[in-house]
């Protein structure tokens, strides 16, 4: 029953987020700040993880292809497909649910505990629009993060394969270019936009409606991470079925 109630409250929250829009001059500053916190601040960890994940995918593929009839360029092909279709958009989003999601929940939750949200409401500010809307807009730049994750993943794969001696650079690059379908990139970016919306709104929901003190802020962050991840996994399945199925 609580789940259904929460789903209902989540959609009521979304309606409120898009009503009584904050003054543009303020909103502009908030969006820039959120881009800095949520997008720019996440680049380091995304670059690091993508590079090594790409490397691991390439090594594992190379180690599992020991049949001489299978061409060596398949390592590059498999790395590209894995990184573009799943690792860059989905795996990165799960990491972002932990990093950005818990940041959003704890910052909004702390504002709730310290009555800063009440202060906004008393002043006549639509606190949901003020707090959540800039995060949604900022995270619409999330496909750029995914694009960087794709690039770094493939680069990681190339470095691992070439340095490890599993294949040649030319073979790997041939694999990257073979049978390339641009729709796969469109599919990945479409997923990323949906994930970005989930990343901005579910953690905000758990932060905004939390009750209690510091301990509850921590609990809300954990709950937000779990449900954001669940929502991303379900959305990933549905979008894959709709766009590629």
């Amino acid at each position, binding site marked *: 029953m609580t789940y259904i109630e929460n789903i209902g409250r989540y959609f009521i929250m979304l309606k409120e987020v898009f009503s*009584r829009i904050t003054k543009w001059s303020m909103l502009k500053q908030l969006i820039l700040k959120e881009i800095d916190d949520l997008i720019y601040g996440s680049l380091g960890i995304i670059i690091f993880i993508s590079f090594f994940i790409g490397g691991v995918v390439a090594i594992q593929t190379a180690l599992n292809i020991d049949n001489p009839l299978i061409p060596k360029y398949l390592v590059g092909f498999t790395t590209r497909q894995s990184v573009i279709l799943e690792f860059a958009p989905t795996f990165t989003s799960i990491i972002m649910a932990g990093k950005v999601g818990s940041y959003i929940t704890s910052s909004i939750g702390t504002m709730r505990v310290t009555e800063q949200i009440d202060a906004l409401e008393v002043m006549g500010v639509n606190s949901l629009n003020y707090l959540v809307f800039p995060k949604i807009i900022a995270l619409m730049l999330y496909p750029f993060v995914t694009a960087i994750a794709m690039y770094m993943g493939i680069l990681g794969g190339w470095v691992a394969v070439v340095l490890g001696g599993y294949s040649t650079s030319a073979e790997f690059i041939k694999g990257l270019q073979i049978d390339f379908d641009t729709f796969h990139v469109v599919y990945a970016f479409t997923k990323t936009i949906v994930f970005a919306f989930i990343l901005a709104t579910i953690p905000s929901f758990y932060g905004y409606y939390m009750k209690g003190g510091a301990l509850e802020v921590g609990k809300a962050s954990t709950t937000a991470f779990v449900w954001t991840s669940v929502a991303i996994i379900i959305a990933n399945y549905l979008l894959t079925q709709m766009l590629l199925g």
Partner: protein
Amino acid sequence: MIKVENIHKSFGGTEILKGISTNFEKGKTNLIIGQSGSGKTVFLKCLLGLHRPEEGQIIYNDKKYADLDEDQRTDLRQEMGMVFQGSALFDSMTVQENVLFPLKMFSKFPKNEMNDRVDEVLKRVNLVDAHHKLPSEISGGMQKRVAIARAIVNRPKYLFCDEPNSGLDPKTAIIIDQLIQEITQEFDITTVINTHDMNSVMEIGQKIVFLKNGYKEWEGTNKEIFKTDNEAVTSFVYSSDLFKKVREIYIKEV
């Protein structure tokens, strides 16, 4: 002036406010007192429009809150200033940005005029050197002053304070009380203060509303509270020996 007519408010089937009626007059410091759990905070949040009473009316200078649409309520809220118990300053903003916030949000003043106004109110609350400090870098008393400055920067008609001197040393508490009273008279606003502090009751209670179990048990002034024989009020206000003594001396002198 704020007129409260028979308001009722419940949470989860428990009635917290059980039909409160009173008036809060303009230019006066109106105090709400009562034991913990008596409904003071819920009452204050109803006055602020953060809780909606199930029954009754709250009228702000002839504007019935329940009859206002969402835009009119937003406009009314811009006429209110609030000092929260924990100050509720935006911790990512400096003192200056906190005070500037309501102006940037709602006014159309040019930037330099906004800054002048911020300087003026910060000077009024005796904070002249803290503009660029973060709330975490200043003391509790200074945070309260910033909260007061933020509450009055938009020249509100109504000022609400939730336990404005809780957590402060007695000297700072008196300074904050006096500051609120001076501002109330200077700007001719309706001030409602929720407090536990008996010093505030004695010093600035131009009107006192005593709540008990969700009812209005008593109302009067800080002079009348010395003379009342209402047992609930006397047992609450004169629970300490010091205040018993103060009362005895006052009655003897009068």
